[in-house]
């Protein structure tokens, strides 16, 4: 019964999207709104129902094939559903945020000519994300992976007449593709080792091949599990925007704000983290892969956070914040604290979506102005937005009691107690990251909502209700969801049948009793104080003495320039790599395609055949003795061959 329900939950957004896409324009906005919101709502209700059923009766988790897609010899590739605790929690997050975004879009895209197309795309995106999290084999994971990439491409370039949007969506897709290349290699490696792409089979038999190695060269062997994990993480690096494949996420802010909330905060970018958690049976067997994950995650966390300090576009600041938080999630996975990583994923989905939607509300109220230097003092004009943004920001920095606090703290605890290689480095990175997080978050907050109200903004007012309701609905879990869920999710075994991780004692070094106890325990750690210190510092910098930031910028000018240019990553990619491949393509086109293939081979063949045949035609001279000579020549050659054969000489 649960199987059929999950199938319905999976298909509903797809059907809704297709209906909206084909018939939306003709049947009007009410139809589009209605059918897509209905689709996602049904999916969401089913997810909750499944959660309740599973909590009551843990026997109900299932892993079942829907149908066999392809069967070659002994290889069978099928479409299947694996619904366990991990899946259902992801389903709830995805569906809830998607539902909020659907409602939000009614107001945000109200005047946009591509209204119906947008709804179609976000419904299809929901379907793709659901198929990714509900899959039970690598093939379907890959399908979902690629599908979300495609939907992201379509949505970033939604306003396709804007050139910067087109460039941004190409960038996103191409960089995603680079990550996908690694993913494909990893999947292929696993397939070649195990002969099947089924999760269950691979996870059950993973331990038997720990000694399997892949020989890369005569002197270098690598354990095949490590190699597979590294390659899979490569895919995660692309999708979850770790360094150095992070450059697409800030540019993806060219898309409308709702999708920044949906895709680039809550769901698509977390697909990588989800995959890490799902593959935990594999990653647990390879400590070198875990160390690599840890290092990449911590570098991402700290460096992208620094970049967020110097941005002037309201959405870009939040984008860099997303990048930084993704780094945190990856760090948690690197120290084997998958449950903490997933918990942070969940809370992050709520408060980051909230922040994005709030930013969207500000943008709409200011008639699509996005530069924060033109904002200020908006707290009196946009009160609900102000309060929800405050809640979101406090959750983001980990203020005690809010959801983000629980997840971040659990995460940092795990890092501090880990003994994996490079965990010390990671600990310092995440700790400094906390300070930077609160700095940029409250820089944004103060610059937008506090300070002087600018003259041109005198007449702004709150946007309509369809924009405000999702804000409120998202603010509630951002505040409260930490308390009830940290126990079961992080410390106890809510995820026990989905991921493999060491016991919570080993990871956290802390015996959990209840949330209140956790709160007081972390008050004895440095994290909370660093966060609150950051609030004060940013208050000073951006409210009291607003000239200090510029002075700092001029004093540390090279460092500042480094940050403004995003560590020159974009420069590197654009001018070195892209130019290289551009030139390669051009020269291949002009020399290879035109000269060789067109001229030499295609035209040249015809030309040469003509020349050759006109010369051959002269053989038909009409003189019989010419023909006789040819016959004699043939005879001579034949005799020559016979001579050589009979004399034993080999030509």
């Amino acid at each position, binding site marked *: 019964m649960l199987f059929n329900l999950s199938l319905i939950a999976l298909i509903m957004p797809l059907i809704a999207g297709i209906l909206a896409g084909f018939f939306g324009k003709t049947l009007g906005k009410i139809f589009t709104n209605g059918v897509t919101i209905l689709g996602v709502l049904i999916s969401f209700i089913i997810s909750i129902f499944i959660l309740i059923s599973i909590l009551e009766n843990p026997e109900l988790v299932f892993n079942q094939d829907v149908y066999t897609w392809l069967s070659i010899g002994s290889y069978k590739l099928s479409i299947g559903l694996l619904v366990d605790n991990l899946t259902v929690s992801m389903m709830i997050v995805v569906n809830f945020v998607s539902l909020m975004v659907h409602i939000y879009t009614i107001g945000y895209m109200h005047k946009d000519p591509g209204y119906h197309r947008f709804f179609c795309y976000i419904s299809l995106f929901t379907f793709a994300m659901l198929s990714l999290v509900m899959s039970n084999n690598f093939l379907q994971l890959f399908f979902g992976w690629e599908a979300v990439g495609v939907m992201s491409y379509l949505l970033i370039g939604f306003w396709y007449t804007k050139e910067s949007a087109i460039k941004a969506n190409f960038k996103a897709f191409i960089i995603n593709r680079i990550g996908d290349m690694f993913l494909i290699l990893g999947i292929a490696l696993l397939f070649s080792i195990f002969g099947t792409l089924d999760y269950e089979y691979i996870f059950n038999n993973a331990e038997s091949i720990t000694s399997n190695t892949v020989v890369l060269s005569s002197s270098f062997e690598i354990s095949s599990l490590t190699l597979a994990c590294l390659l899979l993480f490569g895919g995660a690096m692309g999708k979850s925007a770790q360094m150095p494949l992070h450059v697409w996420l800030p540019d993806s802010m060219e898309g409308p704000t709702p999708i920044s909330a949906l895709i680039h905060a809550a769901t698509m970018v977390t697909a990588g983290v989800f995959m890490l958690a799902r593959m935990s049976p594999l990653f647990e067997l390879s400590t070198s892969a875990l160390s690599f994950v840890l290092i990449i995650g911590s570098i991402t966390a700290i460096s992208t956070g620094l970049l967020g300090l110097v941005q002037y576009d309201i959405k870009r600041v939040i984008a860099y914040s997303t990048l930084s938080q993704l780094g945190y999630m990856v760090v948690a996975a690197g120290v084997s604290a998958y449950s903490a990583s997933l918990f942070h994923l969940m809370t992050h989905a709520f408060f980051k979506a909230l922040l994005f939607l709030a930013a969207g509300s500000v943008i709409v109220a200011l008639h699509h102005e996005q530069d924060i230097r033109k904002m200020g003092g908006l707290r009196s004009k946009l009160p609900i937005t102000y309060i929800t943004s405050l809640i979101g920001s406090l959750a983001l920095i980990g203020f005690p009691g809010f959801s983000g606090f629980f997840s971040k703290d659990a995460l940092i605890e795990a890092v501090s107690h880990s003994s994996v290689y490079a965990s010390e480095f990671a600990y310092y990175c995440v700790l400094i990251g906390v300070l930077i997080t609160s700095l940029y978050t409250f820089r944004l907050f103060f610059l937008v909502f506090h300070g002087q109200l600018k003259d041109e903004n005198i007449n702004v007012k709150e946007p309509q209700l369809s924009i405000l309701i999702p804000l409120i609905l998202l603010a509630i879990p951002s505040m409260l969801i930490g308390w009830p869920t940290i126990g079961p999710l992080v410390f106890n075994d809510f995820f026990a049948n989905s991921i493999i991780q060491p016991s919570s004692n080993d990871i956290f070094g802390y015996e959990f009793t209840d949330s209140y106890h956790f709160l007081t325990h972390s008050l004895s750690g440095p994290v909370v104080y660093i966060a609150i210190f950051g609030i004060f510092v940013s208050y000073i910098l951006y409210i009291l003495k607003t000239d200090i930031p510029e002075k700092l910028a001029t004093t540390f000018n090279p460092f500042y320039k480094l940050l403004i240019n995003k560590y020159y990553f974009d420069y590197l990619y654009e001018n070195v790599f892209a130019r290289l491949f551009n030139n390669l393509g051009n020269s291949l086109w002009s020399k290879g395609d035109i000269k060789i293939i067109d001229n030499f081979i295609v035209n040249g063949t015809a030309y040469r055949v003509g020349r050759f045949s006109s010369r051959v035609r002269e053989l038909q001279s009409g003189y019989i*003795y010419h023909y006789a000579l040819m016959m004699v020549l043939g005879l*001579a050659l034949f005799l020559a061959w016979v*001579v050589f054969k*009979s004399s034993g000489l080999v030509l």
Partner: protein
Amino acid sequence: MIKEIIFYTFSSVLICSSLAVILFRNPVYSAVSLILSFITSGFLWLLLQAEFLAIVLILVYVGAVMVLFLFVIMMLNINNERDKSSFNSLAPFALFIGLIIAAELITLIWINSSQFNINSLSIQEPEQVSNTLALGKELFTNYILSFEIAGFILLLAIIISISLTLRTRKNVKTQIASEQISVDPSTRIKLVDLKERE
């Protein structure tokens, strides 16, 4: 010993006259050289105890075929006293190819010489019959069919030659039997119904 001398003499004559066939300008001279080569090869066949065939060669080939050649040469009145070169442009190449063929053939002969089971030269035919008798015996018993076909081929040759070169004079009234038979009566006879005179 004698045999060797005879053989080498006659073979050199044969080779020289063959070369003369192709090198003379005057076709009559070429024909006469060919006659010489036939006669010489007939002698060589005598050395090989093929008497019947040697005589037949001279009778048939020289006596009939070469005479025919000379008839045609003289009838066609070929005038070849022009001073243009008698060899075409391919001459050196063809010469080269010819020499290669000769060399190859001779090489093949000497390479495979071990495969010829050569009986000694002194063994005669076991039955001590003359060559003609032996030939006749073999021909009319085992090869009778080929014999009949050979006769038929000769008949064929006669018919073909005549039909190719026959010229009929115009305005000669001859009977063409096939046309006589295939006549349609309605074109020759007209039946007229004569009414009775009163």
